[in-house]
């Protein structure tokens, strides 16, 4: 069953912290197998030369950075220990159990912009641009740029024109992965001011198997446009599963206990500038919402 890949660029890419190791590229030809051929790498843009540096050359050793790193990580470790004394996740237990809404991302200073990663189809050779800055009065984030639909002329890519903003994976001390636990909530609440363009919200969870690596749960974010702020409430039961941009046949509800990142993607095939202002992103518990999952879970396309 080998239908050749109709490549649709991944909706958003995970770019981890600055200590990101440039993973090695997978082999294509069976004739010349590089040394580390079995490691699955990130997307390699067609036409880009393969990097064949040995792994020890990828590290950058710098003393002052090392010192800063040590300071930062031990501080985080100390916070973690002292946080345990207060309660789970650093909050008193009564608050942790009873809270009905929580603000996850707020944009109240330039440091808040460091939590986000931007990406556009420039990485695969397109011409879209995306930029992020603080809105007026440093209260909101302002995401703006231009979308261009022209696909890169590499012979493989057929569709292009996307821009995304994705939050970085939260890290504990010593760059360990931390996950968001939203199991006591059931709705995502955003306050945004868009320009009428439809966006897509992508939530990525922690997965175990390799083929789940690009599993993302998404839903649409329709903006009204205009000078007024828009409150958007999306229950988590509406998020559908897709992998690398292809919606999957076997759907299941989003599990809220280990959420890694959230992202916003624009790919509405309308060429031109765009902008989106976000005030805050929070989660809340809507007692009136009783739906478990919006899509059918039974097998809809049984095997042959």
């Amino acid at each position, binding site marked *: *069953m*080998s*239908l050749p890949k*109709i490549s649709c660029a991944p909706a958003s890419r995970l770019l981890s912290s600055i200590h990101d190791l440039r993973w090695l590229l997978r082999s294509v030809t069976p004739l010349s197998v590089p040394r580390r051929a079995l490691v699955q790498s990130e997307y390699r843009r067609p036409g880009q030369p393969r990097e064949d540096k040995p792994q020890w050359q990828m590290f950058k050793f710098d003393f002052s950075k090392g010192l800063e790193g040590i300071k930062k990580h031990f501080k985080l470790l100390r916070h973690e220990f002292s946080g345990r004394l207060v309660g789970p996740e650093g909050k008193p237990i*009564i608050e942790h159990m*009873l*809270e*009905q*809404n929580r*603000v996850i991302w*707020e944009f109240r200073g330039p440091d808040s*912009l460091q939590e*986000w*990663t*931007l990406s*556009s189809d420039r990485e695969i050779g397109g011409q879209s*641009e*995306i*930029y*992020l*800055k603080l809105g*007026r*009065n440093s*209260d*909101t984030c302002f995401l*703006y740029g231009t979308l261009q639909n022209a696909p890169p002329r590499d012979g493989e890519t057929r*569709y292009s024109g996307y821009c995304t903003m994705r939050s970085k994976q939260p890290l504990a001390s010593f760059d360990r992965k931390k996950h968001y636990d939203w199991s006591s909530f059931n709705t995502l*609440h955003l*306050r945004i001011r868009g*320009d*009428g*363009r*439809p966006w897509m919200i992508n939530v990525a969870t922690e997965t175990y198997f390799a083929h789940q690596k690009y599993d993302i749960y998404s839903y*649409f974010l*329709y*903006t*009204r*446009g*205009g*000078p*007024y*702020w828009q409150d958007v409430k999306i229950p988590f039961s509406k998020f559908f599963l897709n992998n690398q941009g292809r*919606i999957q*046949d076997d759907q299941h509800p989003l599990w809220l206990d280990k959420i890694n990142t959230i992202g916003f993607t624009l790919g509405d*095939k*309308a060429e*031109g*500038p*765009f*902008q989106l*202002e976000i*005030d*805050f992103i*929070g989660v*809340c518990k809507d007692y009136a919402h009783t739906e478990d999952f*919006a*899509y059918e879970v039974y097998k*809809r*396309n049984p095997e*042959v």
Partner: protein
Amino acid sequence: MKCSRCLLPLVRSGRTAAQRCVLLPSTSQLIVQHNEQQQVLRYFHCSPASAKRGPVPAQFVKEDEQKGTKSLATKEDLFEQVAKEYKTKDTFNKVIDVFTKRDIRRRGHVEFIYAALKKMSEFGVERDLNVYNKLLDVFPKEVFVPRNFIQRMFNHYPRQQECGVELLEQMENYGIMPNTETKVLLVQIFGEKSHPMRKYQRIMYWFPKFKHINPFPIPQPLPEDPVDLAHLSLTRIANDLDARVTIYQLPCTDFTEGGEEIKLPHIVGIQSPSQMEQLAKHNPKKPVFVEGPFPLWLRKTCVYYYVLRADPIPLEERVEEPYDPERCFDYPLQLDLDLDRDLGDDESFDVDDLDDGPVFAMCMTSQGDQATLNQWISGLQQNNPILGEVPTLFRLDAGTQELQGAADTEPGYRHQPHPEAQREEPQPAEDPEAVVEEESRRSHGMKQ
């Protein structure tokens, strides 16, 4: 008719055999037409009255039989032969008919369908379901249906299945819902457990779920008239059902003394009663700003609107007016109950309330210069007399499109008591802003 044959230029461009000359029946009249690719198109006409008809199918069939220079003939040439102005749904259908009637075995149908899919947008039929069904009809029926489990297992006729999936994918991209005819065709061509059928099932599952999820739906054929479009978009962004749209000026042409024609743009404004109240309560010593243009996207078109707003009132000056109990007799507007809300009952988020300042009115116009906006303000003044005393500042910034902060420079100034508005050019003050914007754009580049 010898003279008509002399008129036939023998054009040899190495592309296809289609450029061979065709012997004409003597009774028909010949019209030679050249398109930009130097191909010669000929139409057979019975009478000059039917000169507008496209090329007749018989032409293609005859030309293929000619033996000409051995050049690569691609399936796209069938589409490219149609002249630009005749590219309509009819001619597209005719080309498909030509192909289907040419060969009972439909040799090369996969390439033909790929070429047709590429050329659909040129002919303007990419959103037409009937055309897709007709294209799907090009596949020979029942040949690709697997007949036993081995054939089903091994991806029977993979190229054709891929082609079918491509066709459905283009339909999906344009958001066209397939119908029963599509399903019947797919079953006849590929069978029930094939990839195109699976894709059809997926489309039929997901499309109805996502068709109406837009809480702010946009009408399907957008209004062409700019005034109607402005009306639609202003009611959309007004966020208030009581808002009233006023057309201050319709697009028309005006003649100046010199005899020149000036095209006056349309000015459509919107204001709601609560905005009027807020404007009436505005402190006349503080200025109001006309800001813009801000973009608003309606599917694929972008329109621009301008906003009349003021800075947020600082906390010291905020006056809390008590609710007038006579405003509503059905229920009390204010309750003084001492409810102790528990942590579990608190439904508000722990964020500071953002206050951008009140927005008093919005407008849309095709020409966003100060003169036009002055006209808008004068029109607004008829319902809001306070605009006569309040200084109005213009912040027409083509660079950034966000609501500006309170501390920004003030480019244009308009003082109402003088009937002649002083049109100070906002350019010198805007340029440093534009430069600042460029720098900030470069520094906040893509975060890697």
